[in-house]
């Protein structure tokens, strides 16, 4: 459904010296510098999948999304969304896609939310049955009626965001691009938005590309992940596969014994497991973190069972955030695999 082939985007940036002199200088000379925001991104997202497109700030995510939505033309390479090159056939592509840009509103600022939907219905020429079905769903899940007749400019961010997500889906697009769709929402509404996206995907086969810093969104919505760093795709696969690239794992346990003196336990663990670290966390549990390359879970568990009278034990999934942080900060990079995800 979405194909990117060696997408490259360069920006021309005006050079300017610091301070007043630098500003004055721009009156006389205009020197440009090329900045490569996206350097050869390739991926393929099959129809009906939900993929998270994630990366640190400045990694080239939003530039890529702008090329896929037809707002920007790539410097080189090619993109196809539902069989169209978005930047060549912007208007036809616009009929196929829905977009939520976290900070920009697609609603009519001076009008109440229901009016924006009526306008979108006209612009997209949405058939009555589709419109009614969708509005009923949004009313049900997002409680859109609660927004009443307040003009959009007077809504809170959370109130507006619900309407934005619904507005991006109202014309049954084949692909929906969601950029920070739950920003400003409380937990209940976050859940509702995630459920809406998942339901639309399940019922209509809508392809979802999500860019978000909210790990909860990614885990609740997406089945595939594309990680971009410095303009390149550095990981593509399922969320689970990404988590498996974690180079440290952790085990938390509680044991019978003197809870007032955990230092001995910690010393013992750190002496036996080279490279591991143990800390006392809330509730008196001991958290053991160990490098996956050095120790297997079996070895770690074996050691704990041998030396402690374990009463409780948890091995949490590796934390997506720390996996990403390691990728962003340039730790070990998983080999790029430019193939289908999901």
């Amino acid at each position: 459904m979405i194909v990117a082939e060696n997408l490259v985007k360069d920006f021309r940036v005006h050079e300017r010296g610091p301070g007043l002199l630098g500003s004055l200088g721009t009156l006389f000379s205009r020197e440009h510098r090329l900045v490569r925001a996206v350097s050869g991104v390739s991926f393929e997202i099959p129809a009906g999948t939900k993929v998270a497109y994630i990366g640190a700030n400045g990694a080239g995510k939003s530039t890529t999304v702008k090329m896929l939505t037809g707002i920007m033309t790539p410097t080189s390479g090619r993109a196809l969304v539902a069989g169209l090159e978005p930047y060549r056939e912007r208007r036809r592509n616009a009929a196929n896609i829905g977009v939520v840009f976290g900070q920009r509103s697609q609603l009519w600022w001076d009008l109440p939310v229901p009016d924006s939907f009526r306008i979108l219905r006209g612009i997209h020429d949405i058939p009555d049955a589709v419109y009614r079905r969708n509005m009923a769903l949004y009313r049900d899940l997002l409680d859109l009626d609660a927004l009443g007749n307040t003009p959009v400019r007077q809504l809170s961010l959370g109130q507006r965001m619900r309407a934005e997500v619904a507005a991006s889906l109202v014309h049954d697009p084949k692909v929906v691009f969601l950029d920070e769709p739950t920003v400003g929402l409380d937990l209940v509404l976050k859940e509702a938005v995630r459920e809406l996206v998942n339901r639309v995907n399940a019922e209509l086969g809508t392809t979802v590309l999500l860019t978000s810093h909210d790990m909860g969104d990614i885990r609740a919505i997406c089945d595939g992940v594309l990680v971009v760093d410095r303009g390149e795709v550095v990981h593509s696969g399922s969320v689970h596969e990404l988590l498996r690239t974690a180079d440290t794992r952790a085990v938390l346990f509680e044991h019978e014994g003197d809870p007032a003196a955990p230092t001995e336990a910690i010393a013992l663990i750190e002496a036996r497991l080279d490279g591991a670290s143990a800390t006392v966390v809330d509730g008196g549990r001991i958290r053991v973190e160990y490098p996956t390359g050095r120790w297997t879970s079996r070895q770690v568990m074996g050691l704990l069972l041998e030396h402690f009278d374990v009463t409780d034990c948890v091995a949490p999934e590796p934390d997506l955030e720390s996996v990403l942080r390691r990728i962003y900060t340039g730790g070990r990079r998983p080999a790029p695999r430019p193939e289908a995800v999901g």
Partner: protein
Amino acid sequence: MTRAGTVPARLRRYAPFTAASLQGLLQYRATFLINALTAATAVGVQVFLWRAVYAGRSGGMPGGYDLPHLTTYVLLAQVLGLMQANRVDEEVSGEVQRGDIAVSLLRPVSYPLARFAAGLPVSLTNATLVAVPVVVLYALLLPLSVPSPQGALLFGCSAALSLVIGFGVNLLVGLAGFVTTNIWGVRIVKDSVVAFFAGQVVPLALMPGPLAAVAQALPFQGMVDGPLRLLLGRYHGPLEAASILGVQLAWAAALSALAALAWRGAVRRVEVLGG
């Protein structure tokens, strides 16, 4: 979802922009009052200035206008000015500056046409809610010349074309927002240059020869001077009347084509502003 469809079906997609714009306008009712006061004052200042000129003249009529004619001209020039204040320049450059143009690019419609559809109600509400009371007010206060039915009809056609010219000019100015970030100065210059060369301040017939020639060669004369010449019957024979309309039509087409071209160029520049 498809692009197919007859022309009316495709045009129907622009109706919501008109409706939305009208609805938005009606939320700011005070604007109409302010516009009415501004227009009424501007007409008043000019009319009384001209009355002083006529009172002190030693014979002959400036440019062949008698006082009721000139009063009508000045009054309706303001009306046309109000109708061409369609805010398209302001809205487009604003969208470009804020970056909201990105969202507009995500709609499956032609942006210039959508802007035209959204600009129409601004012109029309100004014409009805602002201009009509001002005209009625001055009609009660001062002697005006009553146009012939034929003049009124020609004026109607001409005023419609003047709307398209005014839209083209404003869209081009708005698109300048892609080139220069601060469009405010450009708009101020545009407002006074257009008002002057359109004949909103002084009828072109009263301008010195070379200046009038320059004004005639520019598209702006079709915004005020052309329609009012037709209304007041200041032409010789149907051929000249037709040529006034023809020139307007040509400018309307040329400016629309130019705006479409500028828009294409502008879309390619969106990236500079980071969308």
